[in-house]
């Protein structure tokens, strides 16, 4: 356990190194957020919906702020899979799955917090109807933060499954592309899940992708009542357990049939 914690801490520090690139990234993400907010405002002007516009803009900003949590993968691991250097990792006296789980968790957490917090502050300063609204209630905010932490655990399990596929195909671009697209669609990044057709809601909110950011955001905006929070958190934990189990099974099967690309 100590080994994984220190890997986690090392990666956290590593992520804080590239601050220059971060500012460009934040400004770019802010711009994308503003365009989306403008689009939804225009749509609302034509046909107002039951869901208030503030909820939609808050949804957009939280999604933009934590974008790095969704789409970022471990570049070293990809390289190692391609070059065959992954065989060195098999010599380490640690479980490979958890070793990389700790690394990706640190990368996703620090990467998204460093970009997310400044962005949320900026979004909060925007005029009403454009920016981020205050959380519906204090318990709602607490639950949203807990749900976000669980969402992080869930996304790391998904990322390791994607990596499991990469170990099979050696080429990250095909399968990874499809899986990532499923993720950004059904996690609400392309279009808030709250704006998907009402008849789809029961299915899409039960998918693992909705546990990453959608569930925390809905707790934040108050769309999910705090009273239901334990159930939601239970669902998140359940999905995380299932996905971790599946990922570990994949990695151990891959290990048995792995052909190292010698070089």
């Amino acid at each position, binding site marked *: 356990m100590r080994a994984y914690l220190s890997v986690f801490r090392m990666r956290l520090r590593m992520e804080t190194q590239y601050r220059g*690139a971060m500012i*460009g*990234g934040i*400004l*770019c993400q802010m*711009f*994308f957020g*503003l*365009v989306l907010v*403008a*689009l939804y405002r*225009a*749509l609302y*002007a*034509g*046909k107002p*919906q039951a869901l208030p516009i503030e909820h939609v803009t808050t949804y957009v900003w939280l999604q933009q702020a934590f974008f790095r949590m969704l789409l970022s993968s471990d570049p070293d691991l990809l390289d190692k899979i391609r070059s065959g250097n992954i065989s060195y990792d098999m010599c380490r006296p640690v479980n490979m799955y958890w070793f990389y789980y700790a690394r990706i968790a640190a990368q996703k957490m620090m990467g998204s917090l460093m970009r997310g917090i400044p962005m949320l502050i900026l979004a909060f300063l925007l005029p009403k109807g454009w920016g981020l609204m205050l959380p519906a209630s204090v318990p709602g905010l607490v639950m949203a933060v807990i749900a976000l932490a669980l969402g992080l655990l869930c996304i790391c399990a998904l990322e390791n499954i994607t990596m499991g596929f990469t170990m099979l*195909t050696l*080429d990250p*671009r*095909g*399968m*990874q*592309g*499809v899986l990532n*697209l*499923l993720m*950004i*669609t059904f996690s609400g990044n*392309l*279009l808030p899940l709250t*704006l*998907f*057709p009402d008849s789809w809601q029961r299915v899409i909110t039960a998918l693992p992708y909705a546990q990453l950011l959608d569930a925390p955001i809905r707790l934040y905006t108050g769309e999910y009542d705090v009273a239901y929070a334990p159930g939601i958190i239970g669902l998140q934990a359940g999905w995380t357990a299932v996905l971790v189990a599946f990922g570990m099974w994949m990695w151990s099967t891959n290990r048995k049939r792995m052909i190292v690309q010698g070089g």
Partner: protein
Amino acid sequence: MNTLKLYLRSMGMLLKSHLQYPASFFMQTIAQLVMEGGEMMVVILIVDRFEQLNGWTGGNLFFFFGVMSVSFYITEFFGRGVTGDFPAMVRTGKLDTLLLRPRGILTQVLCSGVDPRRITCIAVGVAALVMGSTLSGVEWSFLKALALFEAICMSCMLILGLFLIEAVFTIHSVKSVELVNALTYGGRSACQYPVDIYPAPLRVLFTVVAPFALTQHVPAAYILGKPLYGWPGWTAFVTPLSGAAVFCIMTILFNRGMRFYRSTGS
């Protein structure tokens, strides 16, 4: 003419090399299809919920989406050297080898990359165009077809020109500048929808700085029979030329920038 022949030959060679790994190529092409299909699904879901956007019907919106994705992905298909590979060429010093050859740098950069996976994205765009024009009841005429053709060609030049901004920055600073993405990819996502739905600052940005509104929305609105801002019909053939203008300006700046190029030495 010689240059064109050279370009076509390099395209042929690169295509062949991409097809050497058919399984991988096939998977990546499918991934692209899913990606662009997802974007299209978002527009369909938006139309399903909101029905119209500032007076534009669902069919109109599909048409605007189609014009954007066809022109953006044709550019990425044939201009991969500029839209994708250039920053890496500067960083790794691969650009140095181009300086030794008796051809223009921009020509060689364009000859060095192709991205055939984008074919499925273009297909999705074409499907959106067909769907959009059918739903909007467009009566095609020679002039309208010409306007669409011009809009797509000029948009491709505009997009290449915008990516050249990034290239010029890269020449000066070695690092690629992420902020330019706001104009290129940001322009793509924003201008999938007609520009008149946006507040004034964004409208100005996409009319004056990155004139997607002039190259795409004016002619597309003319084809749909709902002129943008009520401008007369002939503007649909004049305003797209701004795409060529942006491309020319950026080519000049690119060549000027190359004079300051210092190899990274690696």
